[in-house]
């Protein structure tokens, strides 16, 4: 069964998704959803992952919960879930 997950794309990543702000992906965990996104929109996973882990200053949320509290890359996702990607606002 393929899951249908909505993924909300921030402005800075829209060049990868042909300017779409919301796209669909499938997967049972955040990790597999990102892999699926990369199949559809090559190169996007490199903006989200470094050495197999989520980049520090990209925030991901599943249904408005920060994935850091849901198991990170192993966060489970199910049909109808919504993932939001937001680059951190930070600096020094």
């Amino acid at each position, binding site marked *: 069964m393929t899951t249908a997950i909505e993924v909300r794309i921030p402005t800075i990543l829209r060049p990868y998704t042909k300017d779409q702000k919301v796209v669909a992906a499938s997967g049972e965990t955040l990790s597999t959803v990102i892999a699926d996104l990369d199949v559809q929109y090559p190169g996007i996973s490199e903006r989200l992952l470094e050495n197999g882990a989520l980049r520090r*200053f990209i925030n991901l949320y599943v249904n408005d919960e920060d994935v850091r509290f849901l198991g990170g890359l192993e966060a489970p996702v199910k049909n109808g879930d919504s993932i939001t990607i937001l680059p*951190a606002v*930070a600096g020094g």
Partner: protein
Amino acid sequence: MTLKISQAHVDAMLAQSRAEYPDEACGVILGPQGKDQARRLKPMINAAHSPTFYEFDPKDLLSLYREIDDNDEEIVVIYHSHTETEAYPSRTDIAYAGEPGAHYVLISTREEIAPATEFRSYRIIDGVVTEEEVSISE
């Protein structure tokens, strides 16, 4: 390229920066979607509470984006203060600049120029910093 901003907003950002010294102060100015008009100032909590670093708490960040979505707004300005250095984007500022459409405002409250402060604005796109004029209206 110019940042058009009101004196009231500038005063508020400077006051906030002084009040939060020695930590970096930060926030945004929002405006109607697609218009590049700085209308609504929204100071944000620096979740890092640091004199050398600022970060919006991820939860605050999500709330902010939900709010601007509901209001059909965009982020026009992202501002923060430098407490010891000049009002120029640091390597960290450049590395983390994730909102390509925003004007990045830097405010310096460093001791050596006190009580004066420095207020400058930049675009940071694909790692390239371009300073822009600041046009302040009454």
